[in-house]
């Protein structure tokens, strides 16, 4: 029996080549997109799950970020029996490592507690968790780093010199941390001798929020209880008469990658569940479009099979047998499509990786979950695509089927209209989303940030004492291509996370506010001008110790009355009383994801570590090279690398830019698929209406009138799809835009435009066919009645 079904399936496929090509190609594209997105989504969902203790690992978090003071972990472990172990990570970048003559700057470096390797299951190639970072001056590196410094030599026992002063002996080598980890470090160094690095009382610095704290928890603890206890245990300012309890939480390791979007910063950029959902939805929608194409064409095509069905029924085929036949036919088509889809996936994986910023490999496919996912997808599509035609076609009475009645055709036709309408709803939603994303990303990239980001280069290295820095500054300013030089603790694109407090004149309350420690020419280098008063000047000796500049937001926060210029405020970082000499506009210091924060700017060389240099825009790259050389001459011991400020800014939006691009491509694919289906559908409709067109022409209708009549029919579908799609897109994109503190408004024209684009695409597609149909000599369509 199945052999017979199979024969019929193949025969039908070869008989109606156009239909088969449309069905198979759209299913192939649909499945390929789905498999790609399945790879992506399952990769995102797999983050950190490979750790054996993943269910018991939690991260300690503040309300807005996951960073803690160094003493928090021990305090909590000593007081909470629910905590089995803790490990702290102090992440660092731009650290200079040296082995013999090889010197490299490393960006993925961390000082950690030895317990890290007991809590997390990183695989040791050499050494062991029990004998890794327990002793002072020990380090564990990954294989990539081992190869970089030692080639094929055994790294264990070798010594790396860090930042030209401290020696670390390598005790172990771990496999490179898998990509699906929320942090990936190359070098781990022990915190055992933290006192040597950070001062003997380092664990008492409660304001030093730079550590990530991970706990291994006991079985069956209560998360809310632990969190409540943590909040009570954390120290508060003893001078504060009415201290506010900190809002601390613990976050499951498995949630870190996808549920940390609310944090202002993280150990490494994480993804958000929003994007995982967006891509899952897109995958599903595209698969739906592809299946609808298949269903539509199969049922449209089925009118030609009425006789086959009638004969089968007349000879005793039961309804379920016929249904079975259709379902098995759809599986034949699906399996062919799946084979082709896998080839497509293989071909397009590199492109997809580039767009998504991932590094997925085809070999991920060999994962039980993925295979199950693909099989599940096949079964769903197979049943979906086979079920409807099976149901409809098998329900004909044999006499009706043999008579090939037209009444049947028209009821099926309604259902197909719904499917095509649904497809275009999806298309309009995707187009609207793509336009809105484009609009927002364009807005971000072209937003006036309040400072000049072009031709500003920046680098981080140890500038030595102020005298040495001034030598560098003068050397750079002596070059024609350098117009301004400065150093500071924070530069735009960074986060305003150095919070201190100030007390304005005639007020008593401490107001906490971000501090930016700068040097002369900071504002000039960034092209920021004074809105009121003046900027710092090296001509005025008191500026270094007695002056402060505020941004607009800060003036409001401090509730300064009257002209702020000349008023004095008490600062705590460094402790001083300073006079406000200038007020600057609110610049977008952080990203556009965050609201502009108030900030105070004051001169303090001891805090700086970013160098910024404004170079000649016409030869920015060449200038950057020369500046690097000059710096290198003055600081021969440093490894110096510069980057462009605008590039750093751009990288902030990389995730969204990538998503937008992918979204755009998927929208195009969806349109393509829907058009393929539409062509098939339109040709079917026109075949059905050939006679009517002939009659109308005989009775005086012109070609234009016929095309109009046919196109109006298609336009009606778009209108309905538009009405359904608009609220969906409006809601979805409203949610996405909430991620941005500064965003475009969802105006009506975006939706009108997406409807219009769809209309144009649809009419262009069908006009090709309607024109041909309308042009045809009426005699041809009427002759063989």
């Amino acid at each position, binding site marked *: 029996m199945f052999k017979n079904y199979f024969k019929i399936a193949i025969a039908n496929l070869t008989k109606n080549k156009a239909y088969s090509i449309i069905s198979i190609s759209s299913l192939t594209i649909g499945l390929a997109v789905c498999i790609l997105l399945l790879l992506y989504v399952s990769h995102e969902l797999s983050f950190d799950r490979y750790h054996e203790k993943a269910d018991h690992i939690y991260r300690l978090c503040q309300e807005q970020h996951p960073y803690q003071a160094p003493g928090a972990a021990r305090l909590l472990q000593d007081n909470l029996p629910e905590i089995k172990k803790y490990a702290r990570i102090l992440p660092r970048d731009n650290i200079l490592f040296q082995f013999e003559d090889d010197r490299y700057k490393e960006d993925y470096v961390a000082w950690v507690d030895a317990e890290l390797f007991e809590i997390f299951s990183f695989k040791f190639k050499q050494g062991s968790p029990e004998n890794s970072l327990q002793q002072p001056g020990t380090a564990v590196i990954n294989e990539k780093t081992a190869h970089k410094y030692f080639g094929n030599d055994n790294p264990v026992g070798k010594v790396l010199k860090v930042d030209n002063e401290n020696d670390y002996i390598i005790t172990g080598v771990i496999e490179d941390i898998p990509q699906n980890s929320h942090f990936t470090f190359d070098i781990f160094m022990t915190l055992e001798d933290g006192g040597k690095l950070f001062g003997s009382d380092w664990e008492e610095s409660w304001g030093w929020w730079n550590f990530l704290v991970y706990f291994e928890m006991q079985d069956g603890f209560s998360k809310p209880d632990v969190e409540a206890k943590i909040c009570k245990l954390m120290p508060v300012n003893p001078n504060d008469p009415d201290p506010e309890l900190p809002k601390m939480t613990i976050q499951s390791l498995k949630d870190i990658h996808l549920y940390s979007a609310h944090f202002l910063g993280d150990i490494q950029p994480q993804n958000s569940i929003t994007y995982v959902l967006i891509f899952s939805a897109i995958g599903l929608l595209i698969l739906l479009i592809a299946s609808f194409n298949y269903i539509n064409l199969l049922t449209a095509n089925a009118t030609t099979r009425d006789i086959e069905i009638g004969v089968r029924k007349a000879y005793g085929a039961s309804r379920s047998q016929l249904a079975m036949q259709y379902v098995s036919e759809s599986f034949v088509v699906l399996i062919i499509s799946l084979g082709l889809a896998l080839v497509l996936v293989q071909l397009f994986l590199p492109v997809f990786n580039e767009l998504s910023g991932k590094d997925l490999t085809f070999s991920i496919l060999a994962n039980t979950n993925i295979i199950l996912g693909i099989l599940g997808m096949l079964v769903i599509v197979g049943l979906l695509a086979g079920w409807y035609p099976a149901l409809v076609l098998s329900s004909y009475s044999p006499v009706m089927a043999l008579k090939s009645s*037209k009444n049947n055709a028209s009821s099926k036709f309604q259902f197909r209209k719904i499917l095509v309408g649904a497809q275009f709803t999806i298309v309009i939603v995707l187009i609207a989303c793509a336009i809105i994303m484009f609009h927002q990303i364009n807005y971000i990239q072209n937003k006036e940030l309040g400072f000049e980001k072009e031709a500003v280069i920046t680098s981080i290295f140890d500038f030595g004492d102020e005298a040495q820095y001034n030598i560098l500054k003068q050397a750079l300013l002596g070059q024609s291509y350098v117009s301004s030089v400065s150093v500071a603790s924070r530069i735009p694109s960074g986060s305003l996370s150095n919070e201190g407090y100030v007390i304005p004149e005639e007020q008593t309350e401490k107001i906490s506010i971000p501090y930016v420690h700068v040097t002369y020419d900071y504002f000039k280098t960034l092209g920021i001008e004074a809105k009121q008063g003046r900027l710092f000047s090296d001509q005025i000796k008191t500026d270094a110790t007695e002056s402060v500049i505020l941004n607009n937001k800060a003036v409001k926060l401090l509730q300064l009355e009257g002209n702020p210029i000349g008023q004095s405020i008490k600062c705590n970082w460094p402790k001083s009383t300073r006079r406000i000499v200038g007020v600057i506009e609110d610049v977008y210091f952080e990203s556009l994801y965050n609201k502009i924060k108030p900030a105070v700017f004051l001169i303090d060389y001891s805090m700086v570590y970013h160098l910024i240099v404004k170079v000649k825009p016409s030869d920015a790259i060449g200038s950057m090279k020369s500046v690097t050389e000059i710096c290198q001459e003055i600081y021969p011991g440093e490894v110096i690398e510069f980057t462009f400020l605008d590039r750093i800014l751009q990288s902030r939006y990389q995730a969204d830019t990538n998503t937008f691009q992918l979204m755009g491509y998927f929208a195009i694919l969806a349109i393509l698929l829907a058009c393929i289906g539409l062509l098939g559908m339109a040709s079917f409709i026109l075949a059905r209406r050939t*006679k*009517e067109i*002939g*009659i*109308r*022409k*005989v*009775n*005086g*209708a*012109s*070609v234009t*009138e016929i095309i109009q009549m046919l196109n109006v029919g298609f336009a009606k579908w778009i209108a309905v799809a538009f009405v359904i799609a608009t609220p969906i897109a409006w809601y979805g994109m409203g949610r996405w835009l909430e991620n941005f503190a500064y965003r475009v408004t969802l105006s009506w024209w975006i939706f009108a435009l997406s409807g219009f684009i769809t209309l144009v695409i649809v009419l262009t597609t069908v006009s090709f066919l309607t024109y041909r149909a309308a*042009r045809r*000599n*009426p*005699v041809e369509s*009427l*002759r063989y*009645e």
Partner: protein
Amino acid sequence: MIKIEKLTKVFSTDEIETLALRAVDIRVKKSEFVAVMGPSGCGKSTLLNIVGLLDNPTEGRYSFNGTDITYLKEKDRTQFRKGNIGFIFQSFNLIDELNVFDNVELPLLYLKMKATERRKLVEDVLKRMKISHRAKHFPQQLSGGQQQRLAISRAVVANPGLILADEPTGNLDSKNGIEVMNLLSELNQDGATIIMVTHSDRDAGYAHRVINLFDGQVIMEKVN
């Protein structure tokens, strides 16, 4: 009214060329009723299609009321047909999705007539054809005779000068057939020029003149 000279029509397919009409000369005066007879495949319907501007001839000349309309473009043929020529087919060629009224109204729509005017014309012709009680029905709900009366209604509603009928009684029983022929005669007496293709001697008897075609050529003309 109609002057056809040396009209030739060749149908070409990939393999063969079929000569459907060979240098046919025909004249039809205004208000004349002409029947075209002949065996299947002799070129009757081809001739009718060319006269009705549904098809272009391969060679020859065709003038209508003194205008040469032999090689008009599709667009101009449509324009010329509008309101000038009404068609009646053997298989009725009604639009199943439209009801009786809408089917009849069709030619008027393309003449861009006002709705009230169209309504009046359609109602008049339906009354005359005795199917006004069926105005809201769909073609498939009508009997064969009623369907053909509907088709005739549609052919004449715009009051065209020329009515072309392709075996109008071919699908009807004799009672309904006679009824249809009487209707055509009436229309002819009211001034319409009619060219009718038929197999039936009875039907041909209604015409003023019978043209016999054989193998694409006029072999005999006879006046009743």
